[in-house]
């Protein structure tokens, strides 16, 4: 019993250290990827987001499995709590996909509004940054 206690104390210190290191790595990577640390060095947003999400999922795993002792629960309990979370995979994909479609719609509407303005008025200098390509519709 006393040995278990000493062991679990060591595990807790190990896990908190790993969590802290991952957090520092995340922040440094976020800043580095946006050109704060090495001048002019940028990482594409998709890669940035991907790495950050992986880091966060690892942190979540450590918190749930070690700190919340999910590791030591029987498998029925683990499944009944964790499997429903996979429903979220659908929600995330569907909603982000829809969000990107809205962005497309907004851009289309904005483009059309700009075309209308230009054909209606001759008040030069009032026009807003009209590009040749916008007239190709």
């Amino acid at each position, binding site marked *: 019993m006393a040995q278990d206690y000493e062991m679990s104390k060591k595990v*807790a*210190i190990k896990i908190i250290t790993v969590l*802290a290191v991952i957090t520092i790595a995340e922040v440094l990577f*976020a800043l580095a990827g946006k050109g704060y640390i090495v001048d002019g060095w940028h990482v594409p947003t998709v890669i940035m*987001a991907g790495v950050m999400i992986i880091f*966060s999922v690892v942190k979540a795993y450590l*918190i749930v499995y070690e700190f*919340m002792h999910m590791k030591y629960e*029987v498998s029925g309990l683990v499944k009944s709590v964790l499997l429903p979370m996979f429903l979220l995979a659908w929600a995330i994909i569907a909603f982000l996909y829809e*969000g990107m479609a809205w962005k497309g719609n907004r851009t289309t509407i904005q483009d059309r509004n700009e075309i209308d303005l230009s054909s209606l008025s001759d008040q030069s200098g009032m026009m807003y940054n009209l590009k040749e390509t916008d007239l190709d519709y």
Partner: protein
Amino acid sequence: MADTLTRATGDHHNEVTWDGASQPFKASYGKLMMWYFLLSDAFTFSGFLIAYGTLRVSSPTWPVPDFVFSTFPGGIHHAPLLFVTLMTFILLASSFTMVRAVQEGHQENKNGVVFWMVLTIIGGAAFLGCQAWEWNNLIMEESVSYHTNPFGTHTEHGRYLEGDGHDISAGDTFGPGDSYLIHNHNGGWHNLPYEVLDAKGNSMIGEGGAPVKGEQAFGPKAFGALFFCITGFHGFHVFSGVAFLLIICINAASGLYVDRKNGYEMVEKIGLYWHFVDLVWVFVFLVFYLI
């Protein structure tokens, strides 16, 4: 079996509440229900975060986190993400002290439980204090509200025609993707005017020979509402957590759990909740500050 259950419900009761042979999940009712509460809470937070993600990807631009969150108490500016990293560490540290409190509980060590729980409460309160400062800074200094977002992002090249007396002076140039904060002095917004430049840095001339001009536009409207709603909902969880930690800490100190001899299960249950609050922060931190 019966012996265990009477102990769990308190020695003064002699009723056995569980008749169904062995417990399939080998967890007490309270712990199991805490897990399912946390599952439902996880869905609530996911709903909020997915709404945030949807609105964010639907906007042509979004306030850049390392520009928005770059102030630090004591008048320090241009310290991107420093303060929120500090907040994250405070919450992580309080998660560790909570683990220690649960471990001392398993040893039936009353003083240990109380000591580590007090540290956890201090950590939770410190986190709330940090959040109060962050909100105050956003609302009072930077004038962000649930309906107005002065953090904008340029979509073109340009040169400012006026300065704002803070970071921008007349003649400064900018490019697409550069962020700005529209300042609010005495209730009036100062959207700075600029002339539009082409990619080479020459003034863009409109059709009548006059230079094309623009003015700083407000950023995506939803930003403030989403930020205050989601971090506020998380902060409310921290606040409730601190309240329950306080109650259970006082109960532990009074010796209430000594008689139960169940390894301070109440401490374990509030521990689950407290780690969950930390877990949610991992994802709030991810979507609001890192990406």
